């Protein structure tokens, strides 16, 4: 399997297995992600989509198999190096944005920059630019509870991208949104990823959301279904 252009993939997983207790979430899943590519991972509930994302993003370690990111074996990295990498190279967005409820949209987006050592003023200025890019600059002073679901998700995307990660992992980013809000979120994400060359791994059960990606793989019972593989 390769990403179609013959280049070395930015992120590759081979034969991943992962069990939660007695439930095998992944049973030998393999996937490759090219630099700048947007890949949709689809599949029914319980097919292992989120577990795959957690393994690829270095949030959990697989029981077996390998995850290679830019030449480094993520599954073997010490925890300290792994969290460093997660902060510098990866951005993550979940179904419910998981913004900090006490902070305004602007401060939520500025926070990752401040944690990385940027001054508050500079961080807030850059956060404002990213809110603008996602069309929610006018909501900068609102707290998450005061925003619509779509505005909150666009703020969460701005927060995931503000540090300039190479890969954004999005786990059902539109799962809680109506179809128009979902379209706004996906259009913002797609345009921004293309403009900045950011690689995106998108988990979704919705084919209309998957259609924003360049390519789709389907998970069935913890393995990747596709040509030559029985679903």
């Amino acid at each position, binding site marked *: 399997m390769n990403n179609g252009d013959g280049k070395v993939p930015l992120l590759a997983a081979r034969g991943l297995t992962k069990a939660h207790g007695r439930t095998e979430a992944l049973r030998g899943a393999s996937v490759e992600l090219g630099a700048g590519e947007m890949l949709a991972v689809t599949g029914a509930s319980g097919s292992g989509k989120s577990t795959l994302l957690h393994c690829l993003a270095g949030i959990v370690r697989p029981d077996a198999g390998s995850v290679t990111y830019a030449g480094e074996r993520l599954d073997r990295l010490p925890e300290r190096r792994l969290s460093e990498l997660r902060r510098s190279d990866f951005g993550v967005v979940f179904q419910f944005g998981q913004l900090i409820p006490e902070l305004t949209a602007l401060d939520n987006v500025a926070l990752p920059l401040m944690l990385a050592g940027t001054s508050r003023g500079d961080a807030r200025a850059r956060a404002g630019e990213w809110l603008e890019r996602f069309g929610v600059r006018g909501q900068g002073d609102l707290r998450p509870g005061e925003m619509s679901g779509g505005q909150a998700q666009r703020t969460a995307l701005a927060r995931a991208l503000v540090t300039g990660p190479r890969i954004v992992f999005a786990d059902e980013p539109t799962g809680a949104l109506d179809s128009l809000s979902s379209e706004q979120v996906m*259009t913002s994400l797609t*345009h921004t990823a293309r403009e900045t060359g950011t690689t995106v791994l998108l988990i979704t059960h919705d084919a209309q959301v998957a*259609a924003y990606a360049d390519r789709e793989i389907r998970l069935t019972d913890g393995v990747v279904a596709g040509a030559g593989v029985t679903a």
Partner: protein
Amino acid sequence: MSTRHILLGLLAAGPSHGYDLKRRHDERFPQARPLAYGQVYTTLQRLVRDGLAQIDGTESDGGPERTTYRSTEDGSRELARWAGEIAPPAPFVTNEIFAKVVVSILSGGDAAAYLRAQRDAHMERMRQLTAVKTAKGADLATVLSADYALNHLDADLRWMTTTAARLTTLTAEVDSA
């Protein structure tokens, strides 16, 4: 789709000639098959015959003379009647995908493989339509038309996913019939 009603709808904006109607149709319904000139002129003649449109005059703009048409009062009434008429909630259960799955099961073919390939083709078309509708500057007609196609393809896709999951049961039923 009723070409005569679409043309009446375009004439509602004011008198127009056949070439212009064809152009505006193709702009307004960008995902539809473009209208053939012959079809436009035949339809206009029938509208005139039925008293729903009439010849307004001719114009030339320096080129060949063109006949312009306008809607009549009967035409406006017919358009309003058609636009408010409920379309039958069509059951698409006899469509080609469904037929191919059943035939494949009857003939011992690989229905699951067919469904996977068909699903990939649907996804590819959905990616194209999504790119069309999210392109910067896409107009409302294009977006609405792409939305309509996307939702129907999505419905097919959900049916195919469920069918793939049911295939074992379905095969057993067809075999025992």
